[in-house]
Structure formats: structure tokens, C-alpha cells
């Protein structure tokens, strides 16, 4: 317990969390601090490439410890199921319309790659290893939730078409392709490839993550300022309860899959996190009548900071407790 709080405290006072907080505060105070979107995009491309590549190299050296296939199936199932839980919760505790609830639910079934990346950094700092193929699991969990959301929306009369074009867009969206592509490159080139580009993708990684989180704090803060009036107590409750529920659903599956402590943590993080890059764009196409301010505020403005600060240490503690640390 003592330990848990100490490590929680350490994680709260890491440069990463503090950078996010700085961005949040600066935006709420209406500072002019901002990143050009090209720079934000560039940093996200770097992070995706680096994390994918490292995962691949890890697989090439350690082999597929545990079951890759099993984890992917487990992850995909979770991504399908979570939206139904989220939808039910939203419809019972908030006043969101069926359409808005369906759209929000899709975000929580999918994943936040930055939350995932931050969790890996926390694990690395704590000296805890994890299965390299978790990046493939992350990629696999991006899309299924969208289907569930559209099904929920359609059931409630909210249309929501998933045409072939949208399928292609979602499955081949930039972050999935980059993550899996870099993973494949890492697997193929292994330690030798790593030696080539280590000082680009390993050493400066955390620093870039800090700047990216600073930018995310700015974007989240700006969003929160715009959406002040919209955040009701039930929505706030949902934004904190839902990641916990997601993580709780993930824990037993991760245990059954026999993942390591690190792997269990990451699996929980994936389930607990909500997408705010890929899914919102897909929802604008498929469910244009759903209100984007609601899902962006919940996913980026509330759940993301919760996971970043309290969630990750909590999931790690739960994983250590359950998987025996």
C-alpha cells in the first residue's frame, strides 16, 4: 500500500504527467502557447513508429511469449463488447441521446495509443518488461468498437452507414498502418535494426512524449474551456467509471491469457482508454449527427487525464496484485 502510493506519487510527478498538466493549465488560462498541427502530427508519427518498431524487435528476440493470437482475439472481443457496456451505462446514468451514447461508446471500446505509450514508459521506468506484441493487440483493438457503435446507433434509428470506403479508411488508417508496419520492420530487422536506429527511437523517446503530452494538454484544455457548460456530474462519473470498468473486464481475460505483469497492465490500459484520434474522425463520417463535442470532451478532456494520472498506476498495482509481482 505504502509502495503503491509512493509509486503512484512518483508517476504523478513524472515529467510526462507534469507536461500534460502544464498544457492543461496553460490552455485553461488562455495562454497563447500552442503547437502547429504539423509539429503535433510529426511527433505522433515518431511515437507510433518508435513504439511499433520496439515491439517488433522485442518479439524478434524474445519470440512470441504467451499467445499472440489469443491476445489479439481477446482484445478484439473486448473492443466489441465494451461499447455495449458503455452504452448501457450512459443510457442509464446520463441524458445523452441514443445516438450520442452510441458514438461515445465506440470511443471507449477503441483505444488511446498515447495512453498505451505512456503506460509502456511507466513500465520501462519501473523495470517491468512486457510482451512486445502488445502493440499488435493495440492496433487490432482500434476498429472493432466502431462496428458495435454503428450497430447500436442503427438499432436506435440513428442510421450510421459503414460503407466499403469507410471500412477501408478505418482499417487502413494511418496509425494502424504505421504501428503494424513499424512492428513488422522491427520483427524483421531485430536487434540489428535496433542497433541502427536506437539513438533515434529509444533515447529521445520520453522527451518527445513529454512535448506531445504538453500539446495534448493544450488541446484538451482548449476543448474543456469550450465545453464548460456541457459536462454534467453523470458524464464526469461515466468518464471515470468507464475506464475502471474496462480495466476490470480486461483483467481476468489477461490473466487467462497468461500475460506477464507488464502485459496484464497494458491490456488493462488498452481496455480502459478511449480513442480521440481515429474514432472521432470515423464517427464524423458515419454518425455525423452525433455531437463531437461530447465524445471529444469525454475521451480527451476527462478520461485521458484520469488514465494518465490515476489510472495507469492503479492498473499496474492491480496487475501486480493479481499476476503476483
Amino acid at each position, binding site marked *: 500500500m505504502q509502495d503503491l502510493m509512493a509509486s503512484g506519487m512518483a508517476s504523478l510527478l513524472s515529467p510526462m504527467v507534469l507536461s500534460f498538466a502544464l498544457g492543461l493549465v496553460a490552455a485553461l488560462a488562455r495562454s497563447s502557447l*500552442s*503547437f*502547429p*498541427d504539423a*509539429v*503535433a*502530427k510529426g511527433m*505522433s508519427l515518431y511515437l507510433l513508429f518508435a513504439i511499433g518498431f520496439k515491439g517488433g524487435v522485442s518479439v524478434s528476440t524474445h519470440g512470441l511469449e504467451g499467445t499472440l493470437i489469443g491476445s489479439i482475439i481477446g482484445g478484439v472481443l473486448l473492443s466489441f463488447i465494451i461499447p455495449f457496456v458503455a452504452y448501457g451505462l450512459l443510457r442509464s446514468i446520463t441524458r445523452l441521446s441514443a445516438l450520442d451514447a452510441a458514438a461515445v461508446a465506440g470511443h471507449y471500446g477503441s483505444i488511446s495509443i498515447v495512453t498505451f505509450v505512456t503506460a509502456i514508459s511507466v513500465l520501462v521506468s519501473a523495470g517491468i518488461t512486457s510482451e512486445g506484441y502488445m502493440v499488435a493487440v493495440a492496433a487490432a483493438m482500434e476498429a472493432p468498437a466502431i462496428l458495435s457503435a454503428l450497430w447500436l446507433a442503427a438499432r436506435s434509428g440513428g442510421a450510421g452507414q459503414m460503407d466499403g*470506403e469507410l471500412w477501408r479508411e478505418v482499417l487502413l488508417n494511418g496509425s494502424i498502418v504505421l504501428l503494424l508496419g513499424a512492428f513488422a520492420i522491427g520483427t524483421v530487422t531485430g536487434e540489428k535494426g535496433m542497433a541502427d536506429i536506437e539513438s533515434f527511437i529509444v533515447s529521445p523517446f520520453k522527451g518527445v512524449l513529454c512535448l506531445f503530452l504538453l*500539446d*495534448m494538454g*493544450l*488541446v484538451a484544455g*482548449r476543448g474543456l474551456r*469550450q465545453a464548460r457548460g456541457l459536462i454534467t456530474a453523470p458524464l464526469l462519473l461515466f468518464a471515470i467509471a468507464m475506464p475502471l470498468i474496462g480495466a476490470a473486464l480486461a483483467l481476468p481475460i489477461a490473466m487467462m491469457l497468461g500475460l506477464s505483469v507488464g502485459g496484464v497492465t497494458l491490456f488493462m490500459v488498452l481496455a480502459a482508454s478511449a480513442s*480521440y*484520434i*481515429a474514432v*472521432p*474522425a*470515423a*464517427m*464524423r*463520417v458515419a454518425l*455525423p*449527427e452525433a*455531437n*463531437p*463535442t461530447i465524445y*471529444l470532451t469525454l475521451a480527451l478532456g476527462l478520461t485521458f487525464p484520469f488514465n494518465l494520472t490515476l489510472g495507469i498506476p492503479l492498473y499496474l498495482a492491480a496487475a501486480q496484485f493479481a499476476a503476483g509481482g
Partner: protein
Amino acid sequence: MQTHRAKRVEIIIELPMERRLTDALTAAGVTGFTVLPVLGGSGRSGRWSREGQVSAAVGMVAVICIVRPDKVDGLLEAAFRVLEKHIGVVSVSDCDVLRAERF
């Protein structure tokens, strides 16, 4: 200089719908258009800015098409089918163009 009457159509549309719009224009026989970036804006759904954004969900582009007057209706119908449920603004104005053979 010799100029010719034409129409300038300006469509401000959500980033995730850009390709659908330009594909629809092409399908409707409008092969000439130019896409301008947008930094931010304001509308019924509030204010927004591209600053620091990674997601296409928060962003728009402006598509400009110069067309012969007789092609405007086809263009507007094509655009409308894509836009219908989406946020966006379509405006048409008169203009004169050089080198009319291009339109």
C-alpha cells in the same frame, strides 16, 4: 483582356469528408478544383482551431471550383448529397476567367 463568365463555388467542409466530396465532384464531371487549408473557425457547433490537433475530426478544408455557369447545378447537387448531414458551407459567386477553354 478577353475573359469569360464563370462561377466560383467555395465549399468549406469537414476534413474527414474531404475525399468523399472531391470524389463526388469528380464523378459529377467537375475535374478542376483546389483545396485550401483552414486554421479554425466558428459556427453553430462552436469555435475550433487546428492548433496542435492530430485528429482529422477537428478540422475543415475549403474546396474552390471554378466552373462554367451551366455546370453549377450538377456540382451543387453532387456536393449537397455529400454534405447533407454534415457541417459545411457552400457559396457560389460570379466571376470572369481567363482561358475559358480550361473549364
